[in-house]
């Protein structure tokens, strides 16, 4: 029973990371209608920035995190400006391939800059943990911080989208770009802001990911990126609560499948569950059913 609880907590922690990454995917998809495949690699860049800040420059981890957020936000905005903005009118497939190109670029640039030798991410929390029931239930501080960060980000983001003027503009853009433009909303700027927010979230996710799984290589971000993307689809792409739900469920399923069935099959089980969900509810758990008009 206790081991089940342990797995559950680990699952929620991993799921929180997926949820934060999935938020980036889902927001960009909701507004720009594009799958940003480079998102996973921005996570990796964030993790590297924090790694160097903490281990090479001996900075405080919080400073490292802030630096990572700044670098990733700038990087995300820059990528958007150089690679995606010229393709606003192009087909979604063209944008998808460009995003793949950006992803290759980031991975290979990272490999050149930092080599492919795995870097051991510093243990920011010194392995501190809360032990309950005679040490049978161990909750590490990094797990708690991850879950707390996810909750805080969710609340802030929901408030931002619901209450602020920019958030309103984002909602308007995701509903109807043309109408939003006619109402005086700067659509291009709104899309850029969405990218910036998504990239900042990716930086946070990268640092959190590496506190839990400390081995850092240039391809660190790609698998979590793909999984977070499936999490976003799982919960209903374009929906913020959906990303949270999808991320957490995906994390729990992955850890449980690894613990009780087989570690080497856990990925297969995650994806099989995804297929089942999509077959039963083709727009994801919380996705909106859009009626087709002729």
């Amino acid at each position, binding site marked *: 029973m206790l081991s089940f609880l342990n797995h559950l907590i680990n699952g929620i922690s991993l799921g929180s990371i997926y949820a934060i990454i999935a938020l980036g995917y889902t927001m960009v998809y909701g507004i720009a209608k594009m799958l940003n495949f480079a998102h996973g690699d921005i996570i990796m860049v964030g993790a590297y920035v924090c790694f160097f800040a903490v281990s090479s420059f001996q900075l405080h981890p919080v400073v490292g995190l802030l630096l990572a957020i700044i670098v990733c936000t700038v990087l995300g905005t820059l990528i958007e400006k150089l690679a995606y903005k010229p393709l606003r009118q192009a087909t979604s497939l*063209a944008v998808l391939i460009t995003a*793949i*190109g950006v992803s290759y670029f980031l991975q290979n640039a990272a490999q050149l800059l930092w080599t492919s030798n795995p870097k051991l991410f510093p243990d920011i929390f010194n392995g501190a943990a809360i032990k309950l029931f005679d040490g049978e239930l161990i909750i590490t501080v990094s797990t708690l911080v991850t879950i707390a960060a996810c909750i805080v980000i969710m609340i802030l983001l929901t408030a931002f989208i619901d209450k602020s003027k920019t958030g309103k503009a984002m909602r308007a853009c995701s509903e109807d770009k043309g109408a939003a433009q006619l109402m005086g909303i700067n659509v291009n700027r709104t899309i850029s802001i969405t990218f910036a927010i998504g990239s900042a979230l990716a930086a946070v996710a990268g640092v959190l990911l590496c506190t839990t799984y400390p081995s850092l290589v240039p391809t660190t971000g790609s698998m979590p990126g*793909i999984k977070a993307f*499936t999490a976003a689809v799982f919960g209903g792409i374009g929906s913020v609560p959906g990303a949270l739900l999808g991320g957490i469920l995906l994390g729990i399923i992955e850890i449980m499948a690894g613990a009780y069935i087989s570690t080497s099959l856990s*990925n297969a089980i995650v994806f099989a569950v995804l297929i089942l969900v999509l077959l039963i509810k083709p727009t994801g758990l919380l996705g909106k059913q859009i009626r087709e008009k002729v």
Partner: protein
Amino acid sequence: MKKFFTSKMKKSNWLVYAGVILAFVVFQVMSGTGALSSTMEGQLVPVCAYVVMALSLNLTVGVLGELSLGHAGFMSIGAFTGAVTAAALEGAIPNSGLRLLVAMIMGALLAAVAGVLVGVPVLRLRGDYLAIVTLAFGEIIKSIITNLYIGMDSTGLHCSFLNLNFTMQDGKMLLNGPMGVTGIEKISTFLSGFLLIMVTLVIIFNLVNSRSGRAIMALRDNRIAAESVGINVTKYKLMGFVISASLAGAAGTLFALSQNTIMANKFDFNTSILVLVFVVLGGLGRMWGSIIAAATLTVLPELLREFSDYRMLVYAIVLILIMLATNNPTLKGWFARIFKRKGAEKE
């Protein structure tokens, strides 16, 4: 076959056939006279396999209009089925060409079965959801093959999943879980690769020019309109998807039997994406574009060897620049004006 000759073929299709034959002859002569470097020589069969992959994915994305991100899954099924079949039949069929053919048919058949299994439920989904399910399918196939063990001895075939739980005295392992298939006899030749490309082209062009092909394209252009004039959505979508899957399976077999070792990790998401890049760069629905893009981009990393460490970086930049140049309206207009001016000067 009769239909193939009597049907009115487009002129451009004949040009594609002619181009492929010409390329084959040129490279065959070059490899015969030793004009090709050994790395290029080794690339010939994989290039053929990737060309077939690109053609097959173009059928799904360009003609059928469905985005697939898991095409490497079908390639993987074909590769492992083909490699295991070829190894198992080593004693039964001594002729390597015939063995390759049997292996390829087995690979294509199993990939087609997988295509039906995935296609029936999945083709109900639309757009990006279909993409994500095919992605998931590719990952599932990878995990399953990584955990599959197949061995053969005098008593017959042994098979187990997750753990190696059979013992053999005199046999050999055909598929060894995460280690994949090792010690493959390289029976794929450039000629067989060329023939597979030709067969693929015949199948695709005939499908596209047939009644079914027109139904498939009608569904792509406007599903609701096509459905309302009585086109069976599931039947035609499935037809296109399964043909595409089986071609990918055959390409997988061709590829596997040109390598020493294959592992399930080789056919992951990145491979699917790589093939998709060929298709989109070559142009959706344009078969000759896919052939050129697949051949060029498979060889490009080799040609960029002098940049050594920077080659994949250059590859990425080239990819982004090509996409920007071909899809940005400003740049496109700019190019059009340059070419127009050149044309005017000629006159």
